């Protein structure tokens, strides 16, 4: 019997994660709710600035960033392909949390449902079908690793220099009211109609192509 503390911590883990999701600013309800019998609504209207001056948001951001970068680093260093896929799950989920923090709820849930629920499963499925033993290790040569590391470090330094030093023309204090869902709907059917249709054609082509390639001889 191993009744260890970390087993009991499972009761704390979901609460912590739930808190993370929940504290992310939630926006709601673009239109007036259908008036219920009480004639009032309790939905969150618009986005409220939290009273603590963004402290909670900052905390959330740092946690998300830590998970994103930590699991990214784990992917870089891991040799086991299944573990890499699981670390990728951490990256994807915390990127979705970042989208919630950035008030892009719809993109966040789409990231969860398409990336974490679809693409990732496809990847793990591919791993299962293409590896003979569960421990498919592909060792990296040391000099390759060093060369790639140096190139990537230089590239990262260059990008970071640009990002930190650039002056972006921003309007940070705009007040946002209402949801993006109606905006999404109308934008997809007016301004972005051609890309939208092109995307649907592309998906059809991909479906046929994937079925053709994976067919039984």
């Amino acid at each position, binding site marked *: 019997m191993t009744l260890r*503390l970390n087993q009991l911590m*499972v009761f704390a883990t979901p609460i912590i994660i739930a808190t993370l999701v929940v504290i992310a600013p939630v926006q709601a309800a673009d239109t007036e709710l259908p008036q219920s019998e009480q*004639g009032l609504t309790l939905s*969150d209207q618009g986005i409220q600035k939290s009273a603590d001056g963004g402290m909670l948001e900052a905390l959330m951001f740092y946690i998300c960033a830590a998970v994103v970068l930590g699991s990214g680093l784990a992917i870089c260093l891991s040799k086991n392909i299944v573990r890499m896929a*699981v670390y990728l799950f951490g990256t994807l989920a915390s990127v979705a949390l970042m989208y919630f923090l950035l008030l892009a709820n719809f993109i966040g*849930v789409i990231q969860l449902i398409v990336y974490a629920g679809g693409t990732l*499963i496809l990847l793990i499925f591919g791993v299962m079908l293409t590896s003979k033993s569960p421990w498919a290790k592909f060792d990296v040569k040391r000099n390759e690793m060093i060369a790639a590391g140096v190139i990537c470090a230089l590239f990262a330094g260059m990008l970071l220099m640009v990002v930190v030093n650039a002056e972006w023309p921003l309007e940070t204090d705009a007040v946002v009211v209402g949801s993006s869902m109606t905006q999404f709907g109308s934008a997809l059917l007016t301004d972005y109609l051609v890309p939208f249709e092109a995307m649907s054609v592309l998906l059809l082509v991909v479906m046929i192509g994937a079925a053709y390639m994976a067919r039984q001889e």
Partner: protein
Amino acid sequence: MTQFSVPWKQSPPLEHRGPARGVVALARFVYSAAAPIVSRFPGLILTSAIVFSTLAVWIHWELFSYLETIAASDLNGTAKSIWGQSLTVGEIGAYLQSNSVAAGGVLKYLLWPLQMELFRDIVGLAAIFQLFNLIPVYAIWWERKVAGRIQSRMGPMRVGGWHGWAQSFADGVKLVAKEDLVPAQADGMLFKIAPYLAFVPSLLAFLCFPLGSYWVFRNVDVALIFIIAMVGIEVVGVIVAGWASNNKWSVYGAMREACQMVSYEIPMTTVLLVPIMTAGTLNMVQIGDAQSGGWFTWNAFHNPFTFIAFITYYIASLANCKRAPFDLPESESELVAGFHTEYSGFRWSLFFFAEYAAMFVVSGLAVTLFLGAWHTPLPSTWAFEETSLFKILLNGILFSSPFWFIFKCFIFIYIQLWIRWTLPRIRIDQVLYSCVQVMFPIACVALVGHAVWMVLLDGSMFSTLIRWVLGLIFAAVTFGFLSVAAFGYRNGRRMVGYLAVKQLPGS
């Protein structure tokens, strides 16, 4: 004590280190203190639990009606959310005193902590976590009872006295205390985190789940997609578990689960577009509020296509939470429990929590989107004027939204159990055939047909007529089902005998 000599290495005796020692001592103390009382007065404890939970629901109802008042009488005339706003004690007191129901000074101070957002969030999270814990516990108990009755036996009868109502708690204690084995050839890290990957998403799905107009923790505008995403993410844990166990059966289970989930999400999400189109929003609270006018205004009876969509959704959701006849990932007879073959103890119970919570979530989606959410079959305009305490209480019972929501969900869970213990499991190629060649075309037809109906016929006389006809058919089916159940309950033993004699081969 006899010492047996065995050819394998014996495991070392139990010992608890670190903080676990205190926990075990506490558990022992609680057990030894509670066991005599529980075994002596089980009925009393159950009754008082029911009474107290009813009282808690009622108090909650009252509390929320106060909060409603606060929201209604905002100074600027705009609806004001209680969640995510700061209130002062003065404000709460003023609103309470302006309310017709007498509000004493003590109540004002009882409500004082509610002004803090963090406190409200903690209360809400604790409530959700309790709900999440209790629903699987009772669903498991109920599954065992239903399975027993279907097989002409009693099911659990001992623990707790009345029909073994505490059986799942006892099982939980057993599972927590069991040894947590990790196979030697397994990938230890993945093996250990996989149950949490399955457990946490199904808990997160509850965050956006409305149990009533005001009984929602976070009223998000994309709640529906969030919940579907959470149900879909749960599969990652299952696949990782099957893979990490390093067991042939587990890998088979995981691969079946992967292809089954990925394919069944397509028809499920397609038919979910039908109620979204009817309500014009992804917000679960708004979808639910649009169906408040009695049972014939529920989305399922909007037109024939929504009815088809409802049935298609229900079948797809069976596959999505791996219930029979689609329980191929964990088929006991072929794959020896599939992906959780190697799991034991606490991690195994996490998988079960995830599975039963997913059952509740998909049933809840069916109820919210198609069958009137948390509303009674009666129109909500029939609620009493809240002039006296008795009428408030009566309203609380008859129109209590969490009660109706959970009640409807459990009816759907019951149908899931019924299907599981009645139908045989189908083959994996039949599963995929029924998804791609049967359900998906039906879902597409329902979607297109509903869109055409919305454009051409919505609001017309014919549409209303069809809605009434469908509603009456549903009512008739429900009534027939209840009468058959009542007949069977009265003539249980005789009916079982008749069926057994007449239906068995060779009779």
